[in-house]
């Protein structure tokens, strides 16, 4: 048995109190130690990611199989059993890696943007990271739920303590919305468990039962609905999205990166792993509904983004738009039978994390340097802040899916899968058009406009440019090396299609 996934979860969690003490004692040492630790976690996650790719490429990681499995009995009494069960496959490994990578970038970005309660801040980052690693590696539903809920606690404090003027309201709204959604999801799991002929919370065990047709489809409907509520709040899907603009606007920029880059992925991951993976029959029956909801979210997010004056709010709505692609692609696969949808959805989650992550961080820099995030007030960035402007243009290009950024490929795959599901879904082609429209309009107003006289000009340093390159370079690399994500995603997609 390998312990690498436990290590991946335990390392950040155990580090939490030490980071707190170190940062309290000496700010510099604390931050550098945090940075070093997060790099180590990223290297481990990168190794896991690579191994999953190698396994899938060599054909040793087949359909429905998991690498680095660990299983211990956690609770067992009379007929009740609960396992501490971890494993990764082509769905979780890219998310694991990108979450760890974003944590490093967030720590780098926070150095300048976070100026109070730093000890608490950096220790909570690791609590968050450990919980996220747990969410993406858990193969037991209750364990999954436990990590899922732990994520909320640091996020509550991130928004509430380090946020903007309306941070208290946003923090409470965030925690109540997401907690309500996830408890309903838990109820769905419990209902499902009690109805099974031989109850189990282990995802591979349940999937084996599904393949053997031991679970009646009648049992799947209510849990599908319950898990839909939980995941739709996190994704977020319109109309469950109202917490997101508030949370994003109030959260400090590095935390917005975590929110959009990592936390929203939990929703997409949940839809693919749980909604499709455990309730395939019911999912296939109602795939049209999910497809339509995803499409609606895509359009709603794009149109709402068009109307925003606040740069950050615009990016927040872009997230809703992009995450709609994930749901749309995943369910397009169920209808059309092409694996492109799920592969594209996984790819989209990865690219969205980096593209939108860079934009959120950039909005923090812009506010820090120019004193505002209002699009109409930001004028002439090309002359006043040339380096920032270049990064903004490149980040926007990545977010609107312009080649050579791999977000193009991801959205392309999703749309192709949608069209194979139904010719009417071709309307989704319009979404990238609107997205490109509002990004270009934003660039026209901010970067290409005439600078006002006397506007303060503080451009970012080259070290910050290097940090932003870390967001954007992988996106360019991945359009060539897309097999790194698509190869391991293929057995996952095939397996899920086989279940329906």
């Amino acid at each position: 048995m390998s312990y690498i996934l436990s290590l991946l979860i335990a390392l950040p969690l155990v580090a939490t109190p030490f980071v707190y003490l170190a940062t309290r004692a000496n700010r510099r040492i604390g931050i550098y130690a945090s940075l070093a630790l997060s790099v180590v976690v990223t290297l481990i996650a990168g190794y896991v990611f690579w191994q999953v790719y190698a396994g899938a490429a060599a054909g040793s990681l087949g359909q429905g199989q998991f690498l680095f499995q660990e299983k211990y009995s956690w609770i067992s009494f009379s007929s009740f059993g609960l396992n501490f069960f971890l494993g990764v496959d082509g769905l979780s490994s890219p998310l694991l890696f990108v979450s760890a990578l974003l944590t490093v970038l967030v720590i780098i970005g926070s150095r300048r943007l976070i100026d109070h309660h730093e000890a608490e801040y950096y220790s909570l980052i690791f609590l968050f990271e450990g919980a996220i690693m747990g969410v993406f590696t858990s193969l037991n539903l209750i364990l999954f739920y436990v990590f899922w809920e732990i994520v909320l606690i640091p996020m509550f404090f991130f928004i509430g303590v380090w946020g903007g003027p309306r941070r208290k309201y946003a923090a409470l709204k965030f925690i109540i919305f997401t907690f309500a959604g996830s408890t309903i999801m838990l109820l769905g799991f419990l209902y499902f468990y009690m109805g099974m002929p031989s109850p189990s919370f282990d995802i591979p065990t349940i999937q084996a039962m599904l393949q053997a047709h031991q679970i009646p489809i009648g049992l799947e409907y209510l849990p599908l609905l319950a898990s839909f509520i939980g995941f739709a709040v996190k994704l977020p899907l319109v109309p469950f999205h109202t917490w997101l603009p508030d949370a994003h606007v109030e959260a400090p920029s590095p935390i917005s990166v975590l929110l959009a880059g990592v936390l929203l992925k939990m929703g997409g991951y949940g839809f693919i792993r749980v909604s499709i993976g455990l309730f395939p029959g019911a999912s296939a029956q109602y795939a049209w509904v999910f497809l339509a909801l995803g499409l609606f979210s895509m359009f709603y997010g794009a149109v709402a983004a068009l109307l925003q004056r606040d740069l950050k709010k615009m990016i927040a709505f872009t997230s809703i738009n992009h995450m709609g692609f994930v749901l749309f692609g995943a369910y397009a696969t169920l209808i059309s039978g092409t694996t492109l949808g799920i592969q594209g959805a996984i790819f989209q989650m990865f690219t969205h994390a980096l593209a939108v992550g860079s934009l959120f961080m950039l909005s923090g820099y812009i506010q820090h340097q120019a004193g505002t995030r209002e699009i109409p007030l930001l004028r002439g960035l090309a002359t006043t802040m040339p380096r920032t402007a270049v990064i903004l243009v490149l980040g926007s290009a990545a977010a609107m899916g312009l080649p050579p950024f791999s977000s193009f490929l991801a959205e392309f795959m999703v749309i192709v899968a949608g069209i194979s599901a139904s010719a009417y879904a071709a309307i989704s082609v319009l979404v990238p058009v609107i997205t490109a429209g509002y990004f270009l309009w934003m660039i026209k107003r901010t970067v290409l406009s005439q600078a006002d006289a006397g506007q303060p000009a503080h451009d970012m340093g080259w070290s910050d440019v290097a940090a932003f390159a870390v967001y954007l370079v992988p996106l360019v690399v991945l359009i060539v090396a897309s097999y790194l994500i698509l190869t391991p995603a293929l057995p996952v997609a095939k397996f899920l299609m086989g279940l329906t």
Partner: protein
Amino acid sequence: MMDYLTITVVLLAGAGLFLPLLQVFRKGERNLAGYILALVLGTAFALIGLFTLYPSSVPWAGSLIIPDQLGGVFALVTVGVTLAVAVASFDLRKSTSNPVYYSLLAFTALGMVLLAYSQDLLMLFVSWELMSLPTYVLAGFDKKLRSNEASVKYAIIGAMSSAVILYAISLAYGLTGSTQISAVVEGFTNHPSALAGVATLLFVAGFGFKMSIVPFHMWIPDAYEGAPTTISTLLAAATKKAGFIAAIRVLLAITTLYAVTKSPLFTMANVFAVLALLTMTVGNISALTQKSMTRLLAYSSIAQAGYILIGFVAFSNAPGTTAAALGLTGSVFHVVNHAVMKGAAFLAAALVLLQLKRADLGAYDGLGKRMPITAFTLAVAFLGLAGVPPLSGFWSKLLLILSVANGPFAWLALAAILNSAFSLGYYAWIIKRMYIDEGESSERVKEPFWYVLIFAIMVGLIIGIGLFPQQVISFVSNAVAGFAG
């Protein structure tokens, strides 16, 4: 044969009888009585622990008391809470310098231990009174108007509930010719009659007052608010649990009430389900609107009683099934967790009241800076009460909801889940006030050693049981299996 239980009873009774003498002989040593009682309670806790881990299951005192494991769990919880209360009282010198205070605590503890093991209705009633009477005095111990009002209100309601129980016992004896609980239950089940149904409902009402079940809860907020907060801790975390063990022993084996209305809908499970729904909903909604911490805790305590009742529903609905075992295990486990979490929360409120002289919620603004240990304890206890994993309260709630998740009472599971989500509204709101809002001052306030010690133990338990629940769950599960079998 001298066994652990005998020693425990003698120790507690001795402490209760002889502690007041200290007032006569040693006027100077004000806290001596407290130290002695803490020592006695600690010993009793260890003895019961040993006895519960290595049970000898021989009848004790005739057939009045059978020391089984289930009773052991409740005795441990109640004595443990009393110990925490006694230790926390060290710092409240003014009102507790009196050795009588500690003597009354000893009698309450004795009553709760005997109640936990009672197998006979008369024994149960006597220990019920032994437990209750000292708490009426303790509730008014501050000798302030509020405190006295709380005490009188509590005493009147308490006396009424005792009368109801006594009447139910008399009916039971008249119908079955026995006061032995097993015989009464058997008689009720085998020869259902209208009177048996009435007696059962009277038991529900009588125990319901102590368990803080809606609609028998109206005394709770006033009493908890008026009483010294350490005593509120005792009422919420200990004597309330005694109500639950009485209910488990008497009510759970009775499956049908049908003789009262001749309707097949009128079952114990349905009665419990309606009470559970009312209790958690009323408790949570009322808690949201409170302005004072003790009242908020009182209503939250009512809501938690509703969750515990869910296990009763699962057990009464289908005894002998997996769901029943899960439910009852969940109930008893939640009793244990709730005692720790609510004990921690009340003692934190007691310390805030002691140091800041304020009980309103405004006192909690910015508490994270002023009293970091207290605030952290309160935050952990609140998250546990809301059922946020991986804290202990999550696991017991999980078992409770699991037990009714699929079946005729699935609506109750949904109600419990929605209630949990709703309750986070006020728990998170207080956490927000403590850590995010600015207080009127950020000056550090002293946190006395004894409180810090208790907080450390309780937070350790909440997190420790949360991460490694196996030991406690299997212990509780064994205790419950003995009862159900």
